[in-house]
């Protein structure tokens, strides 16, 4: 079991040791909304003590890296120092994939991976503690909450994590040859569940699968949260879907089933080769749509076709570029 206060202390200590003026650290701290953490951008050393790591650190901080690097390039004066980002193992794979997609430069990036044995979303924490909470603390693997009526509630965290945590295919560490890893045992211990959940594309017939997908997507209100929270969607602020200038656009702004299908088809087609199944799109969806249906299928696809999951090493080239001779035709 992870002792989160130790991990927080060790991470702070390490960050203080490597911090140079001009560096920018991306980490987590408490928000004043009970049950959710908020990303923290640190530009001075004193702020490092605000860093808090616990099972609620669900956001994938790599999504900010592509944007900050873009700002550096556009503003012409690259950040004086380094970008330092503290990530969980599953999010580390997003950073690795962005490096191999050449979206961020490896040389002025320092990735600090902290050990994690599963994160809890705000929704699952609320179900665990049986309702709205005023505050929550995490001690030796229990969530201790205080309800709105000032009553103490506690719950065990084991086995209550997000879809991605309980899916063995996704909870894994990329190769870390020159990144730092903070953990009590200093080696990665797999914490996900062993069993591989079956995919609906395999278990259901094509028509039932389409039916299930239509039901899920009919709830979508096209708020773009899944696109803007996705590290693989690094051109989300100049997306083909926001092109108002086309007289006949690729997609209209209608929130109807055919345009919702078009939206998600375009999105998952674009991220298919570099989605690292970090689970953020499913967590960020205000409508509770289980987007893991799509990313788990496409994530497995890359392993089947090219023998390597996306985000496993920062050197394998982008797979989308083009067909390589010798592969069989589709």
């Amino acid at each position, binding site marked *: 079991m992870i002792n989160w206060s130790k991990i927080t202390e060790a991470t702070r200590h390490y960050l203080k040791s490597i911090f140079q003026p001009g560096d920018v650290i991306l980490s987590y701290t408490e928000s004043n909304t009970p049950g959710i953490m908020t990303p923290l951008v640190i530009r001075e050393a004193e702020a490092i003590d605000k860093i808090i790591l616990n099972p609620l650190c669900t956001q994938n901080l790599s999504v900010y890296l592509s944007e900050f690097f873009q700002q550096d390039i556009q503003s012409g004066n690259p950040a004086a120092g380094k970008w330092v980002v503290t990530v969980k193992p599953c999010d580390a794979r997003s950073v690795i994939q962005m490096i191999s997609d050449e979206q961020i430069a490896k040389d002025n990036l320092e990735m600090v991976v902290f050990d994690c044995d599963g994160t809890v979303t705000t929704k699952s924490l609320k179900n665990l503690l049986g309702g709205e909470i005023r505050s929550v603390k995490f001690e030796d693997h229990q969530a201790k909450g205080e309800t709105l009526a000032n009553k103490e509630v506690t719950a065990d965290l084991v086995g209550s994590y997000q879809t991605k945590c309980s899916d063995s295919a996704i909870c894994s560490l990329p190769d870390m040859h020159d990144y730092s890893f903070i953990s009590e045992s200093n080696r990665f211990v797999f914490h996900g569940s062993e069993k591989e959940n079956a995919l609906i594309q395999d278990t259901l017939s094509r028509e039932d*699968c389409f039916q299930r*997908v239509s039901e899920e997507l009919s709830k979508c209100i096209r708020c773009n949260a899944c696109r803007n929270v996705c590290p693989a969607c690094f051109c989300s602020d100049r997306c083909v879907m926001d092109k108002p200038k086309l007289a006949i656009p690729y997609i209209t702004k209608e929130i109807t089933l055919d345009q919702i299908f078009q939206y998600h*088809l*375009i999105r998952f087609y674009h991220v298919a080769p570099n989605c690292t199944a970090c689970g953020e799109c499913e967590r960020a969806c205000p409508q509770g749509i289980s987007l893991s249906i799509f990313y788990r299928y496409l994530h497995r696809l890359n392993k089947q*076709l090219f023998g390597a999951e996306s985000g496993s090493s920062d050197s394998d080239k982008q797979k*989308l570029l*083009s*067909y390589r001779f010798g592969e069989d035709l589709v």
Partner: protein
Amino acid sequence: MASNELVFLFLCRALKRKRLLQTIKQEFPSIRVIEVPCIGRFNPILAFKMITAGAKGVLLLGCDPGDCHYREGNLISERRILYAKETLTAFGIHGSRIQAIWYNPGKDKQILHDIKLFLSEIARLPMLTLKPTQKKEG
């Protein structure tokens, strides 16, 4: 021709087979041909838009990998079709709705046969009920 029997064919203009184009147009009324300067110009987002709007399928016609006029037009599209088909499958839509036919010289009859095969294959697929029922016919 209700829109749900339409098939779109992206034809690479570098193929320079005017006669083949004529025979396709005569023999297959349900195919709408879209000539593109290079088969690499094919963008699966267009195919998705056609399929979600109710078209039956999308075909690509270009040269065999290796003898592409622009060297890698068909290589790029081959990879795009792979991911487009898999994305459709992930959504419960038949990936076979998109198909590429790579042509090698002197095989016009083979092409027509492949197109017939594709049309018969997708004829069996159910109509996608995504777009609200056509308010007006045509």
